[in-house]
Each structure stands twice: as structure tokens, then as C-alpha cells.
């Protein structure tokens, strides 16, 4: 059975700190690993990773995939209170419609 596990489940940091979120996956016919940020409403897309070792960057956020060890990390540097959210990762497969989500990591950034 496909499984995506995120850690930690939650963390609290001070503004300016760096945060590293982990996502490990066991997904049959793995195609890609996706990261989402969820505040009050819909999860919003951050990154899609398909190749090992290639870092994707967007502002203070970056992410990388290791297909040999079956995990991905999401880094947030110089955190701000607006980074407070639940961060979700999902593994997708070649099969139609199969996005398996992890339970998410709740990040709280305090001023």
C-alpha cells in the first residue's frame, strides 16, 4: 500500500529561524513528489520534484528529492510569521489520479 510519512508533525520556531521538513514515501510506479502549503483554505502548490538531487527554489523556500532513499526535504530560511501553515507532501504515480498525501507538518512561526 502506498504510504507518505511526514516529520515532524508540528514545530514552533522564531522568526528568522530556518526550518527543515521531511517527507518519506513508498509509492508504486512513483512519478513525482509534490509540496503544498495550506493556510486557512485550499492547499497551494509549492514544488513538484521528479529528478533526484536537483534543488528547486522559490524565494526563501527550497526543496530536493532523493529517489534512492525515497525522501524529500523542504527548507524555509529566514522564516516569517506568514510562513505559519500546514505543509503537505504528496507522492504521485503513473496511475491516473493517484496523489497520496502525508499527514502534514504544522509550522508555527512566532514573532
Amino acid at each position, binding site marked *: 500500500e502506498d504510504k507518505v510519512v511526514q516529520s515532524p508533525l508540528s514545530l514552533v520556531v522564531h522568526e528568522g529561524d530556518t526550518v527543515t521538513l521531511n517527507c518519506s514515501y513508498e509509492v508504486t510506479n512513483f*512519478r*513525482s513528489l*509534490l509540496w503544498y502549503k*495550506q493556510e486557512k*483554505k*485550499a*492547499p*497551494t*502548490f509549492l514544488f*513538484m520534484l521528479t529528478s533526484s538531487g536537483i534543488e528547486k527554489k522559490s524565494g526563501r523556500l527550497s526543496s530536493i528529492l532523493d529517489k534512492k532513499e525515497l525522501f524529500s526535504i523542504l527548507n524555509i530560511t529566514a522564516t516569517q510569521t506568514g510562513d505559519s501553515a*500546514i505543509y*503537505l507532501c*504528496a507522492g*504521485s*504515480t*503513473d*496511475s*491516473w*489520479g*493517484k*496523489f*497520496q*498525501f502525508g*499527514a*502534514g507538518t*504544522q509550522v508555527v512561526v512566532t514573532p
Partner: protein
Amino acid sequence: DTAVSQTPKYLVTQMGNDKSIKCEQNLGHDTMYWYKQDSKKFLKIMFSYNNKELIINETVPNRFSPKSPDKAHLNLHINSLELGDSAVYFCASAQGTTSPLHFGNGTRLTVT
């Protein structure tokens, strides 16, 4: 210019009632989904449609019946609502298997 829109945003109803949630996407995607997010924020896939054809039905009770009149719309009808159906239901769309999911803003269903 909303990409994926769901109605209603909130739904409060009593056990035993029947209700529907509607979803529309204007992204031109060929695949649409229903996800259920429980109180622990875990997102679980319920159904997936590709070009109006049902392709995933993840052991959802048959009280839940999705309908896709065309590839831009996916509705969810729920019969005989139960307390355990209370959750946030998200509609999402994607293009094939190579693009990320785009989510609607969710429908918060509360069954009393």
C-alpha cells in the same frame, strides 16, 4: 478568474439528509478529484474522473455518488448523511498525470 470553484463553502445539515456539492474548473484540465480532509488535516482521495470517466473510487461508501456532466464539472451527492461525514471536502483538478493538483477552497460539511 477563479480556477477551481466549489459551492457551497459551508453546509450544515442534519443526519439522514441528502446534500450535494458542486465543483467547476476553468483550467482546461482533463482530470478532476474529490478529496476529504478530516479534523486531523489528513487529505484522503475519494474519487477521480478523467474526461468524465470514473477512474478512482477509493472504498468510499456508496452513499457518496460523484457525477461529471463534462470534464469541467464534478459534483458530489451524499445520501443519508452521517455524523462521520463531517469534514472539509476539496475538489481538485490536474492535467493528466504530469501536472500538480489545483484545489478549490473546500466545502466545510457539518452534520448534526
